């Protein structure tokens, strides 16, 4: 069952349901907050939670008390009694008051004008005529030009005003009386007494009330609420149910709240000016339309329960909302617990763009609401006859739902991205840079020159700073300057890029030419930017390297070809001799003696051919790289001795006296003994052929830090007019005039064998002395 539930819980239907519920609960949250706000405002609730606030702290209650007090005062002072009203006495009093007011105002006005005139007179001495600034309605100009206050005019003007007032009062007097009468008659949960101590009158609904009566004790216990204003600064409100909440108004002191001060000021004003004492006792729980505060109590109860309900709704919605959100976050993007995260089509948008695009309608809706909520709510309420409060909530709920949907979708999309780890890879930046191809590799970036990285960072920082300055600054100048700087910076970077790209292009040109074997192409170096310079130098280096290698290869090819051409020629020469002499032998005219002679020549030529062919084989093997060397540590002196020993036959025959000099040292070299012997063999045979007979040939062994050397020196039979290099070259190319023995390849072979062992083969010529040196790398000392 658990598994089924898990599968089920990922299904599309459940997810959609959860989404819908989340939106609904968000709407609940919005609505409950707004309603709570309404309740707050309507009752001026200062504190939460609802069961703690007191009725006496609410504004409507205080307003109602104010109304009560006003009515009571009117009753006492204006209307006095039923008889006074019906007889017209009451109205006369009011009228008299009005005319008293009139007289006061007139005298006050006259006084003011007089003061003004005086001031004018004083300043006229200094500044001249000020009559143009005075309202001439209030002044008269005497025959002699002096100004005086026009009292009559003033009286006239004010009289008309007051006449109107009297008229007004007259019209409203009776209706006002009716209203107040009804107020007090109607009320059944109120017992009151308003005493005018100076007059000795009382207005009360207590049977047989007497001005002298102690209303305090009479009224105090009768109803739960009791209120009295009896002292100059003493307004007491007591709630019997709640003995603790004896609530005293002190006007102007003790940080009393404004609303309380208003009420207390009003009552105190009546009390002090008119010397009234107020006593009220009422029961706020009476449930009837005729109850004072009834409306308030009903709406208070309504509001209280409503408020409580709303707060419960808020918290429970919040709780369920959190559960739903957690569920959606866990479940979104996946089909099952272990399945991979799938992104929806909407998720193709990078996170940043998605949030911006979602934010826009949300922002617009919020702005629209601020301006138009009231208006729309009113229209709606007119159309549907639903209370304004409710329609406002409906409009808020609808727009809230829309916003919730958009925001929730955006949030879930972001969560999916986070789960799929595509926040960065799917971001706008990533998409843009993917357009350029390649990829970002952190290690390779860190390999870049630090100055390049720093330059990029500095540029970004400057641009960002300028952009922020431009956006936030209130000064137009700063904005323009910042934008201008950004433009300049970007233009310069753009141009730098152009420079770099042209430099790259130039390098590409070079490489293109190299590819086609054209090594002469020269790059325009002035195009190379600082960052590319090193790279371009290296490419040029490669090009040079290739050119050198190609040159060498071509040279080597030429040499080899020449070698082989010469050798084939060298082969033909002895062959021709053999053919010739064989013919001669075949001839009958040849004598035995001659035939012997011919035979020995043929023998010699045959041997020569054999040698040549052997040499040729060796050369081809060497050039083909098919030779294996097995180097070991060799005692060079021992080696030299052996060489001389093995060659002593030939050398004796050629009458050449070979001497080995005593070595200064006994160097050990790392070389292949057999192959090195071949080198020496060639050199020895060279000596045999070309050294002057009866001369001494010296063999020397020496060494330096890198190489061990074997040197052979001999005097040449014929004079040498060439340098050592030329001689070597000549021999390797097989100079026909000298190769009576087809010797050409020997030195070439010797040189190859030497170099292939990391050695150096040199020939030098000094007068008639011929010197050949074989250098081999020293063996490593272990």
């Amino acid at each position, binding site marked *: 069952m658990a598994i089924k539930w898990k599968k089920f819980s990922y299904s599309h239907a459940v997810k959609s349901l959860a989404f819908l519920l989340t939106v609904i609960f968000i709407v609940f949250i919005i609505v409950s907050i707004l309603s709570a706000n309404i309740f707050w405002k309507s009752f001026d609730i200062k504190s939460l939670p609802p069961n703690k606030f007191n009725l006496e702290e609410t504004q409507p209650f205080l307003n109602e008390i104010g109304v009560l007090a006003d009515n009571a005062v009117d009753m006492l002072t204006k209307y006095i009694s039923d008889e006074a009203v019906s007889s017209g006495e009451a109205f006369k009093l009011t009228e008299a008051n009005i005319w008293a007011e009139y007289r006061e105002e007139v005298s006050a006005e006259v006084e003011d004008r007089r003061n003004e005139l005086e001031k004018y007179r004083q300043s006229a001495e200094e500044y001249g005529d000020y009559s143009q600034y005075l309202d001439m309605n209030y002044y008269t100009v005497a025959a002699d030009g002096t100004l005086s206050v026009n009292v009559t005019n003033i009286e006239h003007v004010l009289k008309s005003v007051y006449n109107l007032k009297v008229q007004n009062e007259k019209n409203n007097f009776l209706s006002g009386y009716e209203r107040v009468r009804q107020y007090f008659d109607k009320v059944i949960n109120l017992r009151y007494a308003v005493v005018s101590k100076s007059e000795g009158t009382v207005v009360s609904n207590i049977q047989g009330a007497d001005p002298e009566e102690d209303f305090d004790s009479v009224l105090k216990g009768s109803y739960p609420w009791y209120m009295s204003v009896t002292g100059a600064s003493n307004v007491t409100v007591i709630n019997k149910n709640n003995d603790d909440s004896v609530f005293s108004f002190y006007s102007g002191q003790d940080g009393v709240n404004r609303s309380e001060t208003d009420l207390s000021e009003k009552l105190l004003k009546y009390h002090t000016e008119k010397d009234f004492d107020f006593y009220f006792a009422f029961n706020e729980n009476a449930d009837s339309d005729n109850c004072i505060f009834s409306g308030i109590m009903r709406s208070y109860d309504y509001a209280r329960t409503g408020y409580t309900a709303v707060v419960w709704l808020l918290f429970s919605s919040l709780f369920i909302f959190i559960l739903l959100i957690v569920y959606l976050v866990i479940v979104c993007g996946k089909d099952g617990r272990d399945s991979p995260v799938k992104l929806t089509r909407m998720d193709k948008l990078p996170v940043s763009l998605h949030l911006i695009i979602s934010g826009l309608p949300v922002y617009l809706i919020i702005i629209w609401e601020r301006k138009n909520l009231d208006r729309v709510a009113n229209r709606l309420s007119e159309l549907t006859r639903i209370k304004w409060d409710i329609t406002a909530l409906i409009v808020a709920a609808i727009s809230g739902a829309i916003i919730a949907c958009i925001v929730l979708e955006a949030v879930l999309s972001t969560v999916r991205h986070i789960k799929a780890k595509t926040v960065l890879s799917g971001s706008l930046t990533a998409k843009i840079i993917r357009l350029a191809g390649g990829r970002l590799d952190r290690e390779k970036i860190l390999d870049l020159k630090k100055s390049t990285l720093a330059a990029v960072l500095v540029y970004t920082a400057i641009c960002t700073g300028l952009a922020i300055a431009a956006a936030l600054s209130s000064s137009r100048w700063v904005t323009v300057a910042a934008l201008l700087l950004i433009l300049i910076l970007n233009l310069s970077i753009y141009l730098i890029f152009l420079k770099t790209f042209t430099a790259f292009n130039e390098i590409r040109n070079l490489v293109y030419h190299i590819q086609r074997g054209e090594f002469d192409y020269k790059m325009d170096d002035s195009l190379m930017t600082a960052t590319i310079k090193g790279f371009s130098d290296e490419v040029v280096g490669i090009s040079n390297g290739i050119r050198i290698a190609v040159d060498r290869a071509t040279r080597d090819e030429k040499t080899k070809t020449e070698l082989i051409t010469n050798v084939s020629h060298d082969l033909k020469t002895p062959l021709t001799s053999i053919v010739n002499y064989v013919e001669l032998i075949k001839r009958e005219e040849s004598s035995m003696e001659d035939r012997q002679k011919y035979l020995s020549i043929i023998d010699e030529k045959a041997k020569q051919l054999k040698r040549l062919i052997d040499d040729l084989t060796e050369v081809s093997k060497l050039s083909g790289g098919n030779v294996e060397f097995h180097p070991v540590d*060799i005692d060079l002196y*021992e080696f030299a001795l052996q060489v001389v020993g093995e060659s*002593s036959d030939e050398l004796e025959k050629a009458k050449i006296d070979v001497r080995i000099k005593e070595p200064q040292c006994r160097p050990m070299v790392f070389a292949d003994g057999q192959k090195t012997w071949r080198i020496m063999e060639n050199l020895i045979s060279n000596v045999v052929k070309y050294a002057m007979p009866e001369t001494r040939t010296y063999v020397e062994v020496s060494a330096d830090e890198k190489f061990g050397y074997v040197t052979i020196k001999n005097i040449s039979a014929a004079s040498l007019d060439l340098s050592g290099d030329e001689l070597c070259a000549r021999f390797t190319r097989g100079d026909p005039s000298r190769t009576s023995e087809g010797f050409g390849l020997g030195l070439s072979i010797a040189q190859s064998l030497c170099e292939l062992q990391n050695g150096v083969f040199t020939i030098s010529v000094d007068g008639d002395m011929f010197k050949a040196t074989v250098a081999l790398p020293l063996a490593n000392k272990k």
Partner: protein
Amino acid sequence: MSATNQMAYNVLICDDDVDLLDSLEIYLKLEGYNTFRATTGKKALSIVERNDIHCVILDVMMPETDGLSTTLMIRGEHNLPIILLSAKSEDTDKITGLSFGADDYITKPYNPLELVARVKSQIRRYTSLGSMVNKENTIVTGGLCLDLDMNELFLDGEPVHLTATELKIVRFLMDNLGKVMSSEKIYSAVWNETASSAEKTVTVHIRRIREKIEINPKEPVYLKVVWGIGYKMEKI
């Protein structure tokens, strides 16, 4: 060259080049050998089966069965000496040939006199070797036998005339059979002095010894040079 034996030995020559066969036959007959010819390995095998052959000269490059496989097949049944002929002169080829069971390997072009000398040497060894091996207090390598008691050197049963110094050198090298000894060591062992410039004499002596015991001193079989290190007596 030493005197020919009383008995006429049988030598089989096998090569696909008929001219070569002809010329070889002449030389061998001059030396007093009976010759048999074959142009293919198969034929050579059948001759060996049917006759008492004392030495086979075999060319390596032949059509059908080549020289090396023929060597293997002959070796399977017989102990007679086989000399391989080839134009392939690489060391590797020689080693291959010898490891297939041949006793000797000669490269073309060769000196026919040398070839005949080798044949003689091989036959001598083949026929008289048995008597040599049993002797005590001898050092033997291939056809060389050093009698330690008599202080005499025999090559294929024939005594070799060496000078005292030469004999000392040979003895020293044969005491260290197969090991490479530098001229310095040889000198100090034989002359009993510390080597100075007199090592040069060692090479001279070596040369002389070679001339006496090697068929071709230029291509020694017994007394070999290890370049840069010294000389050794090959352990065959």
